[in-house]
């Protein structure tokens, strides 16, 4: 009987997420009325709660661990708190952004409970703390009028933080990413990404084609990127570089800046390939993972075994072997999702991420103030680039760069910084809505 339940629920989860994803894009259609939109968002919320109930049900029936039920209760409380804040306190918040944040977190809680319930619990606690902190952000964004004047504060904090990591950071999987402070391990670069966007926006919003300002911005951005390369955080370097180029291109309206920047990035990648052994290993593992399955290709091979064996409908929760992938709960969480919940489910997840950044860019486009416009654009680019690097890396579409999937991967810094990012976007959206009225 249990077998039958799990079997049916497997398809139920896929159908729920497919329905949710369809609603994401249906709501973005032009010419849709507000009532229709609200109905779609309501349907999304219903899908999300059903997903949590069914998935936790399977998790409980598979383990009979009471902790799963405790988690379910806490998750419900968390999501109700989110909707209280973003539907009732900030009445003008974007329901699309709120729903996507909740859905991604729900998927994260479920897969982490499956992989390691203690980590899922920690993640949920950090999500709760982050929610408490970030619920003030939309309010602050509206009230703090001097954010565009802190240009060099952002740059100084960013460079200092990255420098500290490069010197004193602890190494994991060949890259220096984190600092240990009082027993907690934090990844400064996750937060510096946001500061960096603020720095670039503050520098460029009124720069026009002012050469000197562009030169300073470029020098500071280059310094960030070089420090990340020094820490061997290639994924991070890619995110900072692309974010800067996109912001520079949009604010100057000069396509040649983008093209020259991308060309320099490409040359840099080729140089890195010839200079650094670890880069060559990554590329080799990408070209033919099975040929180096015992070495550099181990992670990616096991990721692909998981995705391939899971197939379109997945093995079902607890039926696969995602724990065979090293650091599966962080960089390779997508592979675990694809293996156990199915390729269709994972594809929906990709499209939810797409709808997220489309919404971010859409919000950015509608903001009139150039400073805030650039911030929304920069944060959207950070999100899109990071998502692309991680999803592309674990599916062997591009060489793996070791970055996390925002909101889904395990990791306190990544989770908190992404929730801050979403809250800033909400703040900008609320501001635009209230301006417009």
């Amino acid at each position, binding site marked *: 009987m249990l077998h039958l339940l799990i079997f049916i629920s497997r398809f139920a989860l896929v159908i729920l997420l497919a329905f949710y994803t369809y609603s994401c894009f249906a709501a973005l259609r032009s010419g849709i009325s507000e009532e229709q939109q609200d109905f779609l968002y309501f349907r999304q919320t219903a899908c999300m709660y059903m997903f949590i109930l069914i998935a936790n049900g399977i998790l409980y029936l598979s383990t009979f661990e009471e902790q799963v039920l405790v988690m379910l209760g806490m998750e419900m409380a968390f999501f109700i708190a989110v909707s209280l804040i973003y539907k009732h306190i900030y009445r003008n918040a974007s329901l699309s952004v709120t729903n996507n944040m909740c859905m991604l977190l729900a998927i994260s809680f479920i897969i982490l409970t499956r992989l390691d319930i203690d980590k899922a619990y920690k993640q949920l606690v950090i999500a709760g703390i982050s929610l408490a902190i970030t619920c003030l952000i939309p309010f602050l964004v509206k009230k703090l009028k001097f954010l565009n004047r802190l240009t060099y504060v952002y740059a100084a904090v960013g460079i200092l933080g990255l420098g500290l990591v490069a010197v004193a950071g602890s190494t994991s999987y060949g890259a220096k990413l984190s600092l240990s402070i009082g027993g907690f391990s934090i990844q400064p670069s996750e937060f510096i990404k946001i500061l960096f966007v603020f720095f670039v926006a503050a520098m460029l919003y009124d720069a026009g084609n002012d050469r000197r300002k562009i030169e300073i911005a470029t020098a500071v951005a280059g310094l960030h990127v070089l420090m990340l390369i020094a820490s061997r955080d290639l994924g991070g370097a890619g995110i900072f570089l692309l974010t800067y180029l996109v912001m520079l*291109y*949009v604010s100057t*309206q000069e396509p040649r800046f983008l093209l020259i920047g991308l060309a320099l990035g490409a040359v840099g990648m080729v140089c890195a390939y010839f200079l650094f052994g670890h880069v060559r290993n990554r590329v080799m593992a990408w070209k033919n993972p099975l040929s180096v399955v015992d070495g550099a290709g181990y992670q990616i091979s096991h990721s*692909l*075994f998981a995705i*391939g064996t899971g*197939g379109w409908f997945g093995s079902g929760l607890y039926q696969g*072997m995602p724990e065979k992938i090293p650091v599966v709960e962080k960089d390779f969480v997508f592979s675990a999702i694809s293996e156990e919940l199915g390729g269709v489910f994972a594809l929906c997840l990709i499209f939810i991420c797409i709808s997220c950044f*489309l919404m971010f860019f859409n919000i950015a486009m509608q903001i009139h103030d150039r400073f805030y416009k650039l911030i929304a654009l920069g944060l959207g680019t950070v999100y899109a680039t990071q998502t692309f690097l991680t999803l592309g890396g674990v599916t062997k579409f591009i060489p793996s760069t070791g970055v996390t999937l925002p909101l889904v991967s395990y990791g306190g810094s990544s989770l908190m910084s992404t929730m801050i990012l979403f809250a800033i976007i909400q703040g900008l959206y609320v501001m635009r809505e209230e301006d417009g009225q």
Partner: protein
Amino acid sequence: MRKRRQESPRRRGSINREFAIVTYGFLLLFLCMAGYFIYFVGYAGEDFIDSPYNPRLSQLSEHIIRGDILAADGTVLATSEVDDAQNETRVYPKGNEYAHIVGFSSNGMSGTELDANFQLLRSHSFFIEKIINELQERKNQGDAVVTSLDTALTDALYVGMANYEGAAVALDPETGKILAMVSKPDFDPNTIAQNWSYYTETGSSVLLNRAIQGQYPPGSTFKILTALEYLNEGGGMEDAFNCSGSYTYGDTTIHCYHNTVHGAQNFEEAFAHSCNSVFAEVGLSLDKSGMARLAKRLLFNRTLPTELKNVKKSSFSLKDADSGLVMRTAIGQGNTLVTPIHMAMIASAIANDGVLMEPSVIDHTQNDGGTLVRRYHPVRYGELFDESEVGILREMMRYVVTNGTGSKLYTDSYTAYGKTGTAEFSDNKSEAHSWFVGFAEQDEKKIAVAIVLERAGSGSEHAVPLARTMFDTYFR
């Protein structure tokens, strides 16, 4: 806020065009990635699923009934019987005959059972059937692996080898597909588990698949290489030689088989008569490193290109060889050791215009309804011989049949080519392995074979008649 907007200098129109470019750029990247993901899950993932490094496969047997192994004509070579309690018993209806090529699925696995383990544990049953099975908590039926094995040819070979120990392989030169493979002594795979400790504790070689793991001195079949090197170094087919029944250089004397005196003959005739004296003399004249390069090109000392597992390498070395060893090596004695499948591959490349196709036994997999799941296409390894070499070798190997030791293969119904061999393997000159390596063609149909019968005596007397039986059966 409105104020700041007015202040911003030199606004050139709306910057929403740039936004559109950035948005569509990212959208394109993500759509390509989603497309790749669909391609991977739907198609490319198969290579990863079937990888022996994939730890998930060991779990599959809990949900899937191991599929059948079939001969090319559908004859069941291995199947699983399932009782009411879902316990599986592996059954081999053909018993000893296919013991080595089909192998066994317990005790560490061997043969096709090992090679196709992953395919046998995948189920592509119709999905409704799968759902019904899931609901009744029954296992799904694994896919059947259809091999390229020809039952008539295998029957003829198995009977023809009689009680000799040894091995024989037949390949389709154009595809590399294995048509038959027999190794004796054999065993009954149905009782392998019961007899396992007996086989392993007594040090018996019964479990050794001699066709791919037996390392034999090649005897005169190696003269194919010696002759090719001689001709490549400027020798000619018409070069005149004289055989007095033996050839001596330094303190080594090489005898012709049974001390036969072959008398005056040209090089082609010496090849056809398998004259050891002439080949010992020729061997001394050859460039050692040239010979080593040829051996390397023909895959000696290298892992053979094939999907079959546990295939042994052939070995060849002329390093620090004195003249005696050089002479013995030239006639296929020396330190050279070959596996029968390797010799069959060399013959198949000559038959296939110099191109070697990688040997394989899996033709396709099908689900329990007989619907094709995946076809395993022939894999081209590359060119072993160039066009002129193929011409020379065909001419000489044909001459063996028309005028030499392979005359029992002469018939009007097909054209046979080959080289016999009599390989001494100990100091006891009376004991020798009987070899035949060659191929035959009839219109577009081709077959390449390698046969070795241990302690049977001369190649022309024992291995050649068996080759005749195989060709007759195949072209019937």
